[in-house]
């Protein structure tokens, strides 16, 4: 594809509901990252995939957060029992491979609002 695609672009949900956020990386990109962008908090690292495996899950805020990647392509970030503090923009990025020679290409993000 032309770039990293994220869906939905906006999601409003009630507290306590589960949400699923989707990321379609650039075709052929093996590395995929999820970040959370909150006002005043910058970009918070959530999880990183190399292929389908996640070597680093250290950024997931709680056990309500999980992510998976299938076929080395699409990734989904799931938040269970959403809380108001989960409201943020969730950004996905992919790169051709891990390492400094492969810059990250970011999607437009999913803006999540928990009411």
């Amino acid at each position, binding site marked *: 594809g032309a*770039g990293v695609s994220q869906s939905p672009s906006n999601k409003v949900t009630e507290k306590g509901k589960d949400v699923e956020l989707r990321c379609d990386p650039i075709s052929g990109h093996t*590395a995929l*990252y999820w*970040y959370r962008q909150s006002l*005043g*908090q*910058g*970009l918070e*690292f959530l999880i*990183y995939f*190399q292929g389908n495996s996640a*070597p*680093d899950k*250290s950024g997931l805020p709680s056990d309500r957060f999980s992510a998976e990647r299938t076929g080395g392509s699409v990734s989904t970030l799931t938040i269970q029992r959403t809380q108001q503090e989960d409201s943020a923009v969730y*950004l996905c*990025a992919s790169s051709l491979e*891990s*390492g*400094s020679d492969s*810059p*990250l*290409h*970011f*999607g*437009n993000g999913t803006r999540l609002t928990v009411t």
Partner: protein
Amino acid sequence: AQRVTQPEKLLSVFKGAPVELKCNYSYSGSPELFWYVQYSRQRLQLLLRHISRESIKGFTADLNKGETSFHLKKPFAQEEDSAMYYCALLSNDYKLSFGAGTTVTVRA
């Protein structure tokens, strides 16, 4: 654990004036540093990386290991430089950590 610190949340300069965005890091290994930029209504994108030692859109950044800094500089700011700038550090395990970001406003 690595950490990236951008002490300035907001930076306002006049067009034609120099601009410097500060970035400090802490990391026990050999770091690779980057600057990413997000213009209004656009995606976050790579601006420059220290290993390339390049100048992009008039911006340069020098890695100072002694001071653990990677400040971004431009001698003459332009209005189109108004954006959000993020400093980032890539650790040996390929985790890319970002600072909190600095919003730059260039006034005419």
